[in-house]
């Protein structure tokens, strides 16, 4: 593989790309683990006789997105670009700026191999597939610090309710029961988790995916808002901004629990903590077998150059190939998009996730269910709720209904 990579590179240098087509790939994976994961794709792609030109730009929404949109609308597109799958790229597709991968998808039977099917569905617009999903990140996890509970003389909770019950004791021991970073999306994540865990996947689908306002008024959601109020009480006093700072508090035992996506595992891995021994991970707050199918996908802008068109197809095939899926997702700490690959090397938490993915309930991630606009408003509403003790759950509910109504 290495040899062919070298040959590919040499050919490009000597002949200006007679055989190896250079393709520029834009993405926002810049941290150590992420970059290592992308490198797996690049390696596999280069081995197919093409050349991956890396266009990494850190900062998903704020920085990378204007670049992607500018390049595409400026008619100087990159060969491929990362997007969260879901509604974000839809308009670019509708404007005819992205190419359809339908032919490749049909030829290779993507609809048969991609699991869960819903993840490919979010790439589909008017019956055509426009993106390659590359991974699944579930956002429905509760991370607990075993050390914190030991210090407070308590058993590690098995679900959200036990955490709530343990909170007073944790406070007594000087431990923050629940830590939530101050970035709005982290607060959004809390409500998302509570809806899935407390009200269940069915209500989750009704509220977020279908925007059913009656469901918001229903008895299950009433419990969710009650739990939200509790979460606010539990998180009072947490004073960190970024999610990894919050995770650090779980790692060093100064906080009991954090609600965060599965990418938090990376932090535990770097701190050399072992799942089950040093920390505990509970899918859907330990209250059900539910995962959400957030994740990343790659889109391919329309280009005229047939060589690049061909290379785009090669890249799409590489990304969804079983070998690249395994190599990429192991490094990324996410779950593969196909059910027919084997992740023996996965750690405990990830295996729990894979189990749920295979057998449990699957719900759409916030990005898929809501438009970017509604999603940001949702997050803003939640961070306001968490920061303003005088904001009632009724206010939060009314705000949520406004957002959902506006988005449907």
């Amino acid at each position, binding site marked *: 593989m290495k040899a062919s990579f070298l040959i590919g590179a040499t050919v490009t240098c000597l002949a200006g790309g007679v055989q190896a087509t250079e393709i*520029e790939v834009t*993405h*926002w*994976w*810049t*941290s*150590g*683990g*992420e*970059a290592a994961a*992308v*490198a797996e794709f*690049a390696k596999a792609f280069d081995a197919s006789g093409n050349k*991956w*030109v*890396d*266009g*990494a*730009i*850190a*900062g*998903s929404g704020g*920085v990378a997105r*204007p*670049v992607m949109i*500018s*390049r595409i*609308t*400026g*008619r*100087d597109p990159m060969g491929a670009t990362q997007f969260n799958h879901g509604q974000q790229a839809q308009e670019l597709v509708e404007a005819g700026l992205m190419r359809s991968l339908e032919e490749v998808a049909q030829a290779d039977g993507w609809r048969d191999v991609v699991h869960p099917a819903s993840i490919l569905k979010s790439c589909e617009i008017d019956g055509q597939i426009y993106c390659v999903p590359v991974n699944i990140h579930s956002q429905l996890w509760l991370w607990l610090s075993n050390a914190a509970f030991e210090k407070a003389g308590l058993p590690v909770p098995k679900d959200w309710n036990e955490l709530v019950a343990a909170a007073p004791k944790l406070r007594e021991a000087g431990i923050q029961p629940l830590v939530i970073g101050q970035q709005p999306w982290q607060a959004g994540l809390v409500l998302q988790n509570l809806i899935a865990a407390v009200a269940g996947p069915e209500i989750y689908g009704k509220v977020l995916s279908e925007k059913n306002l009656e469901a918001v008024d229903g008895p299950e959601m009433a419990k969710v808002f009650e739990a939200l109020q509790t979460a606010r009480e539990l998180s009072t006093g947490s004073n960190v901004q970024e999610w*990894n700072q919050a995770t650090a508090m779980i790692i060093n035992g100064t906080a009991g629990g954090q609600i965060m996506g599965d*990418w938090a595992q*990376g*932090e535990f891995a*770097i701190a050399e903590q072992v799942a089950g021994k040093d920390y505990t991970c509970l899918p859907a707050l330990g209250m059900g077998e539910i995962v959400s199918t957030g994740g990343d996908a790659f889109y391919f802008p329309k280009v005229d150059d047939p060589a690049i068109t061909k290379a785009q197809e090669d890249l799409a095939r590489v990304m969804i190939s079983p070998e690249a899926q395994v190599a990429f997702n192991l490094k990324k700490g996410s779950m593969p998009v196909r059910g027919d690959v084997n992740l023996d090397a996965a750690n405990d938490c990830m295996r729990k996730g894979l189990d749920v993915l295979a057998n449990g309930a699957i719900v759409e991630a916030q990005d898929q269910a809501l438009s970017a606009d509604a999603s940001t408003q949702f997050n803003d509403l939640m961070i306001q709720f968490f920061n303003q003790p005088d904001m009632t759950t009724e206010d939060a509910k009314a705000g949520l209904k406004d957002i959902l109504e506006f988005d449907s």
Partner: protein
Amino acid sequence: MADITFEGPYGRRPRSRISAQNIVIYSVLTLVAIYYLIPLYVMVVTSLKGLPEIRMGNIFSPPIEATFEPWARAWSSACTGLNCDGLQRGFWNSVRITVPSVVFSILIASINGYALANWRFKGSEVFFAVLMIGAFIPYQVMIYPMVILLRELGIYGTLTGLVLVHTIFGMPILTLLFRNYFTTLPEELFKAARVDGTGFWGIYFRIMLPLSVPMLVVAVILQATNIWNDFLFGVVFTRPEYYPMTVQLNNIVNTTTGVREYNVNMAATILTGLVPLLIYFVSGRLFVRGIAAGAVKG
């Protein structure tokens, strides 16, 4: 806030030699100088520490064991995406962007200032007023129409396009400075040249430009700093082969997941700021002189 107000009361009599007063002046200035140096000190000290030492806390304490490894990493091996060659990749790009942008934007703005000061025509002040309002528009709003404009001109994604963008957005403030400067030059100079039959361009190149060296220095400093520090335009209007150093800096500093290597961040930050800092350290005096020459009479 509490830590600013200590710059409060002090005497301000000119040129007296009373030593008590001088003591007050020097001690105030020294205190202020220390305050101003603290962040630089923190940056340097942090960049020389190892990560474990940083986690221990106290950002003000000097490194127990100084290491230049973060600097080496920031310059030549920090990864941004797949490219693990640090900031050096973007350094020459930054130079390639900054030099033509500075030259071109200053040339245009000085001609503007000259025309506005010495050759006013009907409507010229209106255009100037529009430019002044333009100075207040957040750049970000302009991204979409600018992409369309550059695309229609056929220079989207090129260095030319980026130079044009820098020229346009640098124009308001630079034009203001040059216009003010040229109005302060004695009118007699201009009149005498006119009597000799020298035309618009002749006066500009033979008289005005040579006389405007102090202002040119100011403009170069301002523009070089702004353009060197620019991130948004460099990344939105070009392609990866032109990405300036600030893009790598962003990628190193701004990673959203994973460990933050604060020492490498700080080293990268200082390295990126080194060029503008050097310009200031070397030409700070000329800067004041240039503004003194131009800014007093408006």
